[in-house]
């Protein structure tokens, strides 16, 4: 039998949950992105979604190109909640969704602390350079430099909402 004389180090997971919830409830917008996302933060998800969609390409060829380019993203992200999303939150209906809000997904604290909504502009900046807009994100992706490629991917994601 093991002696019990020495203090056993402890952590209470339930206490951790309390701290976790408290932390989640007192979210603060990251200063680094406040300025570039102020509009997105004040508009409703529906307003952003509708406003943004007007400017996205609707050419089927561009959307098809976006679908093919999305295969890079697809190794981590599903676009259908009924399919497994192996290393990222699902992206069904991502436009207009609150950042860091897919229930049950283990976001790092950086995304958990955001209040903004995924607008076209914010998605574009994130796909361009994830760690510039959200330093500390766990997304293992260096970013897409080509603007037209990014637009095609976002147009593809938007097209899924109207299918």
């Amino acid at each position, binding site marked *: 039998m093991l002696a019990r004389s020495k203090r056993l180090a402890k*952590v209470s997971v339930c206490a951790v949950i*309390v701290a976790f919830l408290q932390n989640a409830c007192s979210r603060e917008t990251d200063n680094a992105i406040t300025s570039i996302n102020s509009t997105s933060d004040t508009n409703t998800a529906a307003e952003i979604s509708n406003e943004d969609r007007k400017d996205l390409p609707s050419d089927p060829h561009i959307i098809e190109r976006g679908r093919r380019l999305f295969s890079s993203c*697809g*190794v981590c992200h599903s676009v259908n909640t009924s399919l497994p999303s192996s290393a990222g939150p699902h992206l069904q209906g991502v436009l207009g969704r609150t950042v860091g809000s897919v229930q049950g997904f283990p976001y790092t604290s950086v995304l958990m602390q955001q209040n903004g909504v995924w607008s076209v502009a914010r998605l574009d900046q994130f796909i361009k350079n994830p760690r510039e807009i959200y330093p500390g994100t766990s997304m*293992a992706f260096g970013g897409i430099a*080509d603007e037209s490629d990014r637009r095609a991917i976002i147009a593809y994601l938007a097209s899924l909402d109207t299918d």
Partner: protein
Amino acid sequence: MHKLSNRDPLDRRLFLKTGAATAAGLALTSCADENPDRNVRDKDNGYHVVIVGAGFAGATAARELAAKGWRVIVLEARPRVGGRVFTSQFLGRQIELGGSSVHWVQPHVFAEMQRYGFGFAEVPLYDLDASYIMLGDGTVKNIAPSTFDEKYTSAFNKFCADSRSLFPKPYDPFFNETLHKLESISAEEHLLSLDLDELQIASLRAELTLYAGAPISEFSYTSFVKLFALASWDTFTFTDSEKHWHIDSGGTSALVQAILDDSRATVRLGAVVQEVTDHGDSVSIKLSDGELVTASTAIFTLPTKVYPDINFKSGLSKEKQAFIDNAEMSDGANIYMRTTNNLGNTFCFCDDPNPFNAVQTEEFSDETGTILKATLGRQSLIDLNSFDAVAAELRKIHPNAELTDVAPYNWVTDPYSKQAWPSYRVGWFSKYKDMAKPEGQLFFAGAATADGWHEYIDGAVESGIRAAREAHLRMEKSYAG
């Protein structure tokens, strides 16, 4: 202070149904997973061991320690388990974006496959329709597969000719003390000392660049030859072990998950470790969201280049810090590609500084076209997220390739790996034991610390078993004292 309780399984399911759909779903799940069927040594619900990293090393260590009754929590920064293995889907197919190949000459991972009922999935490496060697200047030579095989095997045998005398006991790599005298020899220096023709040098340099993850003038010659010794000093077996067999039925990620499931350890995803304090009789780990996790001991299984991102309050030994700062260099990545046209069963080695060091057919048919996998030792030579750049590179080898889909994974831009597979810089092979050495209540695993297959999954499993043994002995002594 709240304490965990070992609820019965029905209670846990109910708890999950009602509670998991909250922002704290994952943490709640962690409660539910808590070790219900083990003969847990201590009933007052603290953790004995915190393991940082849920790759093969961390999962194995968790399983080993939990099996001995220690209460274990695993912290993983990523939103998934597996570390530098990652099984995903590409056009409906199972793909391996990180460590992939396994073999029965790799004893630790093979034992895990046997334990959990995994078999081998074959990659069509042999019976090639065509083989190519791209020279350093980008010129592509179409070589008959039989000639390719003959030239490469001959070159490889020459490169590794001293393997048996250098490594008579591969798991005790410095058993032959003359090895220390060879520490300063690079793979490039050794390669160019051999009597090889242009195609042999190009193909072998491509292979070595893959392992180095850097120009091979920086790569430890002897560390590579050790891997050859582990494959029974045999070229066919070595190639078969590195490029021919994957894990079936869910792949590497499913095997890691099976090990973790068996451990019944608490697993926390999205848990980014920021600071570590060794109190002498316990260890505190502060996460990025401010949470504090405390246990008696801690095992770190991180890729070497990630250690600088963690503040070890008491510091690390200067030897370990030197290893972290200097020993590793892997700049690697993988990419899957699909072409609409059937290119057949092909293999290509591309000499440095071409970015795709090896391009291998994984599947081919008139209906599918071709699924190719390229492995890069130096991802910084190309923007893998540029479809056009990838297409242009592939067309250098296959000019008529009609590329439609790509799926890259860049291990260097992954903030929780910052490097691909372990590889030792010239002069640093013998220092791997510094990285493995325990410090206070802290223990260290990870493939880079393995005696055996250090660039492989097998090395990660080996290191997890070793670190778990060390932590177990320490805790046994501590609790008995």
